[in-house]
């Protein structure tokens, strides 16, 4: 059968079935099971109203439990078992996890994922905030916003193709068609190259470490102050931020030192995706490019929601635009920044297509989701594959709990 026709029939059956189900089940409830007539009319109405919500919910609950809740449990079970040759499974305890922890490729994936988790949300949120703040103040801001937002509509695979063209490499004697290499070849090692490729990146990295230090200090200071006002629940978070901050500062300082002494290969076209460690960043740029639009849209709405009078008061007190932005606006939209950050974090944890299409985990660019896909469908090892899926789930869990906690607080 023609798949298009099959699709059409599915739409009709699906939509018709849904409407039919809801309509007839309600009819059955009201007319047959608990009719609002006769001696028990009142009691019947009450009973029908008790059952009706579940009629409305039933298809959704069924789909949710089969497609999302059951797999969580089943994956956990699979990660603790192993397939045996004749079919069936045997319980092996934590063997799969142990085998996985021995694989260097897993640690590579986990390391890369941690790097992604820090860089992508931070960069997307920062760029989004910048774009939101700038576009709110100019007349063509809406156009600018929709252009920056546009990559959201592009598939990860499409984005991978777009950026592969940017990173494309040709042999030395041919003209470069990738713009990154064309720009790279424009640098010849003169004073301008020194400014743009050494001084500027080092300045940026130092500024970045200063920013990290400041944010880390904001988080850690209340614990050291000894005022006893720190909520116990936030201590792990504060410690985590502190440690991650120290690590980032160490990382950027180390890179700065390496860059000063580095002998950059001027005039030689680079295959960007095969340079270890840095190639992960070239992949991250793709995701940052996509997610910035999302961050910008949400943060722009939040910035507009900042009460005018707080800003006016700051102006009257003589604050300059930077002070207004950092001391008045940012603190008031902190909640939204956290939301944007966590949402992008979830996207990062699931990122698969970009790595799959651009490098497929070669040259030390592996990430967890692609590692899992490799295990499940290439190595056909369901045990380790499920175990790595559980690691992804484990990383998501804090955000899951935080979201549920917030949603419940909001409902009360």
């Amino acid at each position, binding site marked *: 059968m023609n798949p298009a026709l099959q699709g059409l029939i599915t739409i009709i059956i*699906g939509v018709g079935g849904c409407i039919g189900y809801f309509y007839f089940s309600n009819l059955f409830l009201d007319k047959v099971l608990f009719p609002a007539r006769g001696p028990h009319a009142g009691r019947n109405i009450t009973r029908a109203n008790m059952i009706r919500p579940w009629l409305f919910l039933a298809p*959704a609950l069924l789909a*949710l439990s089969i497609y999302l809740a*059951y797999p969580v449990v089943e994956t956990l079970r699979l990660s603790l078992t192993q397939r045996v040759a004749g079919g069936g499974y045997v319980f092996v305890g934590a063997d799969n996890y142990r085998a996985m922890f021995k694989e260097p490729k897993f640690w590579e994936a986990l390391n890369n994922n941690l790097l992604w988790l820090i860089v992508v949300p931070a960069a997307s949120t920062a760029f989004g905030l910048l774009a939101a703040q700038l576009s709110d103040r100019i007349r063509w801001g809406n156009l600018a916003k929709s252009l920056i937002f*546009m990559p959201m509509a592009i598939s990860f695979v*499409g984005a991978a193709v777009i950026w592969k*063209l940017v990173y494309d490499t040709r042999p030395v004697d041919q003209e470069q068609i990738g*713009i990154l290499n064309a720009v790279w070849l424009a640098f010849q090692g003169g004073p301008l190259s020194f400014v743009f490729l050494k001084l500027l990146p080092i300045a940026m990295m130092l500024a970045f470490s200063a920013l990290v230090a400041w944010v880390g200090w904001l988080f850690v200071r209340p614990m050291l102050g000894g005022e006893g006002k720190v909520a116990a629940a936030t201590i792990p978070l504060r410690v985590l931020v502190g440690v991650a901050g120290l690590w980032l500062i160490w990382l950027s300082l180390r890179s700065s030192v390496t860059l000063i002494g580095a002998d950059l290969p001027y005039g030689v076209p680079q295959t960007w995706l095969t340079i270890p460690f840095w190639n992960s960043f070239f992949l991250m740029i793709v995701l940052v490019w996509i997610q910035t639009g999302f961050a910008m849209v949400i943060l722009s709405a939040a910035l507009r929601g900042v009460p005018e009078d707080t800003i006016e008061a700051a102006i009257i007190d003589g604050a300059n635009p930077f002070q207004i932005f950092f001391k008045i606006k940012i603190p008031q939209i902190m909640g939204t920044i956290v939301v944007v950050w966590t949402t992008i974090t979830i996207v990062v944890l699931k990122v698969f297509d970009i790595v799959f299409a651009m490098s497929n985990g070669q040259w030390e660019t592996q990430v967890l989701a692609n590692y899992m896909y490799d295990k499940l469908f290439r190595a056909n090892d369901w045990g380790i594959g499920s175990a790595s899926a559980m690691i992804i*789930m484990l990383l998501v869990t804090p955000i899951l709990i935080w979201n549920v906690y917030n949603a419940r607080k909001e409902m009360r």
Partner: protein
Amino acid sequence: MDNIVGKKSTLTWAVHISMGLLVALWLFPTIGLFVSSFRTADQIATSGWWSSLSTQERQVPAIRVEGAEQQIDGRFVIEGRLFEATNAVISAWGTSSREPEAYAPDQVVELEGGATLSVAADGAYVLSSPATTEGTRLPRIFSSAATPPEFTTENYRAILFDPRNVDGMAKAFFNTLTVTIPATIIPILVAAFAAYALAWMDFPGRALLIAAIVGLLVVPLQLALIPLLKLHNEIGIGKGYLGVWLAHTGFGLPLAIYLLRNYMVGLPRDIIECAKVDGASDFQIFIKIILPLSFPALASFAIFQFLWTWNDLLVALVFLLDSSGETTVMTKQIVELLGTRGGNWEVLATAAFISIAVPLCVFFAMQKYLVRGLLAGSVK
């Protein structure tokens, strides 16, 4: 500050310039792909897309003289053209790789054996020889030519409308469409009913259910791959459209319910109570009042789900694609092209742009709803 009357910020220009830079940076990669998809293979391979609007001076690879021999005035003459394109202008040419630019156009050059060769500026050449050249090695012509900008829709024709092209995207395009439409429509309906129950009906366990749905919002679908594939195989769905529709429905539901419930809760209570007083049943209220009023939220989710299913690779890889390749979708096709035609940017760029074009149209047409959905959908 520009919110103080009569005082204009000195920062305004800085703002304009930095915003311009940011937009350019964000737009540049996509434009590169778009421009490349309209260039010929030859041009893409020899120059960057940013120089596609300027005339390019480049060395043409050596071309050997060939063609039918004619006898004119007792000499054997071969006439031909160096290239099909008529708008290229040759600035210099030569007959050896050591001196590829030895002669000017229209110059008549003596070759060994009394033969003469001349190349005109438009690429036409004449080889004239006193004896027949049949069976001998004919000379090669090296040339430098200036090619004016040239754009073509040939790439699109080859990829979309050429049924013999193995890299064609036409089938994949329709397959993607077949996956997308049911996978967008069905979850909306299922979710709308559930959202209504969660928003406007009172029953024990409601708060718990809402919390569970918020939790399911972030469950990575990676977890679902193996258990569901196993389940599909056991109940006989196997790999195919039905499986992928069901999977997309399941994965899309938490967001759908969450978005729609948040929107429905905000609808005015009076309308619903009035309808109840007038004797409307819950089913009627839902169909006649809630559903029409929730149109913006429904549209938001529809766009999300459409973009997500259209752009998806992982779910299709796991639940749809079998070894026959009959059901391949565009994302998979592009990944394959990346592997097999990695350097042929005219194929890659065109294929990628075809798959990007539809979501981009949807995006620009319905951006308002997308933004609204994003604002409502991010857990606050």
